């Protein structure tokens, strides 16, 4: 018997919450009726107000059906957030991000409380995960006060792990259904390969992520998964050359998230090269290093070397054992090759429709 709760709210925001937030002046600028922003009590724009995330607390009933959105309403919400709000020019993008992340958290909460059927859950979760992925790259150069990468990574990791679990469960169930001759329940998940690859690349060099990728059934081991595995295994082996070669060829979002690991790949490479190429006379040309380690330009590589106390003379690196200081890894930066991949693609279509792979 199905005991789960089913939502009844068909709008992006329950009526009670609209009333409350209007009277308590808790509307976000992106939710106000245009023209009323300067009033003491701005009015809510019914087409733009979205349910906020609230923690469950004692005394509040989180599972009132009238406050929980139906699957259709949730899909509508996600589409609205990731199609319209995402390209809003009213605010700086990191504030837009704050708004969307909060509202997506509420979406995830609504799904969780209702224990939506796997197929619905999967289709709503996928664009959410792509959004976190995109944001991780897009905002990686921001200061911690504007963007907290740890928190975003936590959202990404949690949702991604949940998605993979849902894939496993629905496959397990559909196999059982097929065995029972009940073919109607077969669930269609068309971008699983992409998300399997994302899990590998996001957790680059992580043993359990690699093992999961390796033990996937053949039908999910698409080229994109294999490439992700090649990069990750190369990182694990310390083969930075191979890792970078393949990293560059990943599809847009995967390349973006993987590029966040470049600072540590480069640090590792420079550490080893300082030992292996150690010489007082011989040098290593900057241009070759730039090419190998996917640096966008000469300035970046010079800055990195300065950070690690590696000498550069006449456009050549002088590696000398013991000279490198093992500073903290530098923060990630936007990389030229990712920017090129991103250009010519609207954000909302990338996040909603996914990568081409």
């Amino acid at each position, binding site marked *: 018997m199905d005991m789960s709760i089913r939502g009844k709210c068909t709008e992006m925001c329950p009526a009670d919450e609209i009333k409350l937030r209007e009277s308590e002046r808790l509307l976000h600028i992106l939710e106000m009726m245009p023209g009323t922003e300067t009033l003491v009590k701005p009015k809510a724009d019914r087409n733009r107000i979205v349910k906020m995330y609230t923690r469950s607390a004692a005394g509040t009933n989180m599972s009132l059906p009238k406050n929980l959105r139906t699957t259709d309403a949730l899909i509508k919400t996600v589409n609205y957030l990731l199609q319209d709000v995402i390209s809003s020019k009213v605010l700086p993008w990191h504030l837009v991000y704050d708004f969307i992340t909060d509202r997506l958290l509420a979406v995830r909460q609504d799904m969780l409380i209702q224990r939506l059927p796997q197929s619905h859950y999967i289709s709503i979760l996928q664009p959410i995960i792509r959004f976190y992925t995109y944001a991780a790259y897009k905002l990686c150069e921001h200061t911690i006060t504007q963007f907290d990468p740890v928190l975003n990574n936590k959202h990404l990791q949690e949702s991604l792990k949940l998605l993979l679990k849902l894939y496993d469960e629905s496959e397990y169930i559909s196999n059982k259904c097929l065995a029972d001759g009940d073919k109607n329940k077969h669930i269609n998940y068309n971008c699983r390969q992409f998300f399997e690859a994302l899990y590998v690349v996001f957790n680059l060099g992580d*043993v359990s992520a690699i093992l999961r990728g390796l033990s996937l059934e053949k039908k999910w081991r698409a080229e994109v998964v294999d490439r992700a595995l090649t990069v990750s295994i190369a990182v694990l082996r310390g083969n930075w050359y191979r890792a970078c070669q393949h990293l560059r060829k990943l599809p847009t979002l995967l390349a973006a998230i993987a590029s966040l690991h470049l600072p540590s790949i480069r640090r590792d490479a420079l*550490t080893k090269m300082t030992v292996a190429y150690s010489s007082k006379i011989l040098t290593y040309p900057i241009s070759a290093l730039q090419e190998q380690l996917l640096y966008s330009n000469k300035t970046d590589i010079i800055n990195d070397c300065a950070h690690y106390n590696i000498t550069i003379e006449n456009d050549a690196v002088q590696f000398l054992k013991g000279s490198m200081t093992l500073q903290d890894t530098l923060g990630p930066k936007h990389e030229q090759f990712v920017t090129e991949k991103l250009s010519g693609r609207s954000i909302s279509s990338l996040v909603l429709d996914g990568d081409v792979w």
Partner: protein
Amino acid sequence: MVERFVTAPIDELAVFHLKCLYALSQKRYNEAYQLQSALTQALTKIIQSQKEENWFLPVMYVVCLDLRTVAQKAESEKVGNTEKPGEILEKAAESLMGCFRVCAADNRSSEEDTKRIGMLNLVNQLFKVYFRINKLHLCKPLIRAIESSPFKESFSLSQQITYRYYVGRKAMFDSDYKAADQYLTYAFENCHKSSKRNKRLILIYLVPVKMLLGYIPKREVLEKYDVIQFWDLVEAVCQGNLKLFDELMEKHESFFIKCGIYLIIDKLKIIAYRNLFRKVYLILDKHQIPVEALQTALVSLGQTDVDLDETQCIVANLIYEGKIKGYISHQHRKVVVSKQNPFPPLTSLS
């Protein structure tokens, strides 16, 4: 009926046990699991109420062992299409944890009566479940509990062996090969010689770990314990035969993945590289080896997509790890190796 022979509260255990046996005989595994689970819960209450005594522990061992095996059976025979994979085993682990908590919390009894002596048995049961449902991170608090236990040395030898086998595997998984070697070696050396199956299981992990640390197993040992499949691998690594190595990786891929040793075997490739490069060095008999010569060797052994830069990257890793003594000259595309002992034996490396 039962009451006439055994007194409360033990009568309950007997009833559940008989019911469980009946369900098993009828092949109703899920029901059998539910009954065994109820039995475990009743037992937890009993041991909790027994202060200053631990004579009941052997009963607990048997009940917990049964619980796990019945859960495994129920898991594999699951028919419904609403359950999730691993669900029953997860629930069984919770019941086992219940017993574990009672034993671990018994710190007021005297040493000979303490239930804490029963902890290791339960930990081993839990390891078996966690490894099966792939939740290795849950092992960590258990290991901590055992390592900090004052009875660490008093647990029975068989339990210690099982414990070290799993902790060794866990260490291997965390890339801590030194620790893995230590634990697995203890398990292998202390495992009774007639327990061939267990010895074989230990070797599946011990062989790759040892090889990574530079020790090569003897063919007789591999033959004796029926892990002769590793012999080809040993030869491939020793000869630096990367082509054979890749073939073996592909051939045994699913076996390696299933045992969780795929990535450690993959690491052996680094040693194969070292051995191949050493051969090139011996053939050329020079201290300045052209990178091209190394690359040619790699390409001829099936590594067709490796270019000069990647060859240098591989050599750089070997130099960094101390497996080759020397340096690379990028300008001249040469690897200059030390005049003395350019390829130190792997076992001499820390």
